[in-house]
Structures are given as C-alpha cells and as structure tokens.
C-alpha cells in the first residue's frame, strides 16, 4: 500500500461528499417548495413575442405591456412564446422563467408590497430586446 496513514484523506473525502449532498439537498428542497403553487393561485397566461408581453387573466381580461395584480393574492404564470426564446422576469420579486415557443412554463408568486415594479425580458431576443419591458402594478385588495 501507500506506506502512510490515509485516514485524513478518507475523512476529507467524507466531509466533501457530505457537504455536496447537503448543498444538493438544500437547493433541491427550496426549488421544490417554490415550485408548488397554492391551490387558490390565480392563473395568468403570459405570452412573449417580439417585442412585448401579453397577459391574459383567468376572467379573459387581456393586458399588453402592463399587468395589474392584487396584493396578497397568489398568482401562477403560464408562460409561453409566439416566436423566439424570451424570459419573463420581475426582478423585485425574483420571478424568472423562460418563455419557449410550443411549451408552457410555470412560475408563481405572491405580491407582498403595493406599487409599481418593472418587468422585462431577460433572454436576448432580437433588435429591440432592450426595450421589451413592462410595468407590474400591485394594488391593494378592494
């Protein structure tokens, strides 16, 4: 064999494996928690196209370039694209999900603060990508 004690190396390998397992499990757990929308979440269909966002509420109301939501209500976005890859992003609420043609991706959140928040495309999608922006209006429940 090697002619020297190898136990520190095995301890090192064990600690590294344990830390990697912990990091993986912790990340997987948080991702799972934030993936599961509450049962009463309202569905909003989000469609990205060059170069604006369209929102369709569950009652059929449509909005373009702006989105009005109620504070304290959970919303589940069903996100797709009509042309190329986009990515729907509300930076203040850490909402980020790709918009892919022919596919529906989901993400959910609860707006906690009233006010105006920017929303934008976070995947380069062509000439006017920089201006594919909108505004999220969070209003107090009536």
């Amino acid at each position, binding site marked *: 064999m090697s002619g020297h004690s190898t136990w520190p190396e095995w301890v090192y390998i*064990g600690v590294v*494996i*344990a830390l990697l*397992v912990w*990091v993986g499990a912790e990340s997987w*757990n948080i991702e799972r928690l934030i993936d599961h929308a509450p049962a009463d979440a309202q569905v909003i269909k989000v469609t990205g196209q060059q170069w604006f966002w369209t929102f369709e509420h569950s009652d059929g109301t449509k909005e373009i370039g702006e989105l009005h939501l109620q504070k304290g209500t959970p919303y589940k976005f069903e996100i797709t694209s009509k042309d190329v890859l986009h990515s729907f992003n509300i930076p203040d609420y*850490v909402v980020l999900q790709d918009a892919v043609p022919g596919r529906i991706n989901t993400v*959910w959140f609860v707006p*906690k603060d009233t006010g105006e928040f920017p929303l934008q495309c976070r995947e380069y999608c062509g000439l006017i990508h920089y201006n594919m922006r909108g505004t999220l209006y969070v209003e107090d429940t009536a």
Partner: protein
Amino acid sequence: MKKVLGLSCIVTILFVLPTIQYVLAAGDEPGEYLDRRVEIWNLFFRLMTVAFVIGAVVSGTLIWLVWRFRESNPKAKPTKYEATGEW
C-alpha cells in the same frame, strides 16, 4: 477496505440519512404561501456561508503546507532521495 466501509457507514448515518429525511419531510402539495424572495436569498446566503468556510479551510491548508514544507524551514528534513543524491 474495512476502514472504508466503516467510514461510509458513519458518513451515511451522520449526514446522508438525516439529509434525506429532512428533504422528504419538507413541504407537501399543494404549495403553501411563501415569499420566494426570502427563500431564494436565504438559500443563497446559506450556500455562500458554506462556500466561504470551505474556501478558508482549503486556502488555509495550502498556505500552511507551503510554509511548513519550504526548504528553509528549520524543521525540514530532506527526503531519502535528496539525502542520498538519487534523483
């Protein structure tokens, strides 16, 4: 080999099993109201804490290693190859 198996058992009992249990016990469908900002940033801070601790330990070990085994260290002993001039 026995030592490896023993260490694997200890690691499994102390770390792997509690982690799996912790993960499987958390959260049920449908999801609960939670603030994804808080969850995501907390995860980030926890992982950064681990990353910086590991970084400190690894770089500290390397610095000690270089300092301890430098040629000019009074405690340095030549290897048997160096001592006999066999290279």
